């Protein structure tokens, strides 16, 4: 198993490098001069040339890439053009905010999904299974940004019981464990939870159904175990797959919360991406995408390691 873990950890290096190449390429794919955001259009040609040199844009692309990579490795993501602040500082505020949303959404989605999926798999083919399956497919089919809007319409516009935008009172951008912040968390977390709920319901249902059809379950019954004890065996067998799906979902929500953050004007990485795109703030765009992708890579690694720890079959493959 140790060998598997080492191999898996080492594999992060080429993937990580690939990610940096892709992120670098993305920004250089974007149309227009990367200087256009900093230089006024009527600037004299000499000044433009000087700036080009200062930013290193006059060098060939591979050299630019390695210079950039060298800075990234030491934790320097550059300065946001539009905000004039270090990209790292912007991310230090935004990432925890997004993480709260994503973690809340995953947790809620996982709890509901495990319950629905477990029941559906256990009572295969009955009406309750059909209901859970219907909920699951609705969950994966619903455009969550629209669901967020509908929730705002119901709970903020019509009933006026929950806040519709922001993270806390007075445009707060720092999380606090108080009632006001919790109230702001409800709608976005419910919105984000819908997709993981659907996916986890499906996974758990399929896994539980498959396990129940295996011979060892009948053997357990024949051995005279109580229903409750058999159930524990089923849970233990279903856990690795389910945890893997949950871990990946956390990663998807971290990187994919931009739509929901836009609906609720949540001050997280999604909002950073949004303003970076529309202000053509390339360092901020580059830095945010890179950090989110790296989180996803590490989360994938963690999922694989945890999975191999609880399911020895994984690492033997």
């Amino acid at each position, binding site marked *: 198993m140790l060998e598997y873990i080492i191999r898996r950890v080492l594999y992060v290096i080429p993937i990580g490098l690939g990610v940096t*190449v892709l992120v670098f390429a993305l920004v250089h*794919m974007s*149309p227009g001069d990367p200087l256009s955001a900093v230089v006024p259009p009527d600037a004299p040609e000499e000044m433009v040339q000087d700036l080009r040199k200062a930013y290193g844009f006059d060098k060939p692309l591979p050299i630019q890439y390695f210079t950039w990579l060298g800075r990234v490795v030491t934790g320097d993501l550059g300065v946001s053009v539009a905000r004039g602040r270090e990209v790292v500082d912007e991310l230090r505020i935004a990432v925890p905010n997004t993480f709260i949303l994503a973690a809340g959404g995953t947790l809620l989605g996982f709890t509901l999904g495990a319950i629905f999926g477990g029941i559906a798999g256990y009572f295969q083919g009955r009406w309750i299974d059909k209901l859970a399956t219907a909920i699951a497919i609705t969950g994966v*089919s619903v*455009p969550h*940004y*629209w669901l967020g*809007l509908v929730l705002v319409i119901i709970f903020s516009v019509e009933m006026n019981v929950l806040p519709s935008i922001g993270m806390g009172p007075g445009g707060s951008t720092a999380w606090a464990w108080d009632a006001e912040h919790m109230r702001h968390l409800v709608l976005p977390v419910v919105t984000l939870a819908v997709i993981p709920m659907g996916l986890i319901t499906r996974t758990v249902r399929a896994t539980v159904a498959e396990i129940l059809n295996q011979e060892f379950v009948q053997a357990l019954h024949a051995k005279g175990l109580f229903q409750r004890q058999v159930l524990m065996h089923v849970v233990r067998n279903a856990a690795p797959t389910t945890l893997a799906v949950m871990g990946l979902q956390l990663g998807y929500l971290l990187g994919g919360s931009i739509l929901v953050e836009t609906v609720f004007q949540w001050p997280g990485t999604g909002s950073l991406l949004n303003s970076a795109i*529309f202000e053509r703030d390339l360092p901020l765009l580059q830095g945010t995408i890179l950090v989110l992708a790296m989180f*996803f890579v590490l989360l994938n690694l963690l999922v694989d390691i945890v999975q191999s720890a609880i399911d020895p079959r994984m690492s033997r493959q």
Partner: protein
Amino acid sequence: MTNARTLDSKQQAAVDAAQVAVQSRGYWATVGGRIRDDKVTIVCGVVVLLIIFSAVFADLIALADPYKASMLKRLAEIGAPGYPLGADEMGRDMMTRLLYGGRLSLFMGISPIVIALAIGGTLGLVAGFLGGRVNMLIMRLMDVFYAFPSVLLAVAISGALGAGIGNAIVSLTLVFIPPITRVTESVTTQVRSLDYVEAARASGAGSLTIIRVHVLSNVLGPVFIYSTSLISVSIILASGLSFLGLGTEPPEPEWGLMLNTLRQSIYVNPWVAALPGVMIFFTSLSFNLLSDGLRGAMDVRL
């Protein structure tokens, strides 16, 4: 019929298999029979056809001009005279715009899957069939794309390229190439190791002939089914990009963009503002159920 309802899915499959043996029907006849028995799939198929039909023939069905604004009718209620589904923030007829909106939303959702199927399918077929270093190269490249959550990748690429329908389609295509490549590769690898492929090779068939005659026919089904299951995600993402302001640009009618521009009006006329999302939801739900039904009928395990 009442007896059949109590069977679980495994038993049902056995019964189906027995029926096939008795009547010795062909594969496609079996698939057809299963679809005919599956009411949900038939209904969803009809709904998908209706949605596509109403988008394509929007100019024949719709009563009004999708671009004609009216200051007086701004945000008219659902059921207002002459405006069965109300009017948007510019006073344009909602029903007309929802019908026309399907054109772009469906086009932007489906075309990335078609292109990604062509590119990813080819890559996966090559990687799976040749194996070795080529496989390594292609699959490791795909791993890099897998390092991005799909929404992030789509937003990152279209954000870098700038707003526009073409750029949105490019970014979504890049999102869907890796998963399709991966599925094609794993199916191809499985098929390649089957005995009859070995037999064909032994009898002197060239690689291209083997791919065309023996491999492709076994790979296409599962890959096609998998691709149809991606359409629903693609439609949601395509409208999502427009919702962020990255896909379609105003005044084009498109569901995601309509949702975005109507968002400002939720305190005035909330339920009209929610309508475009209903269309996205029903479309994606129908595609999802249809794909599930086809997968069941064709008995594809992925």
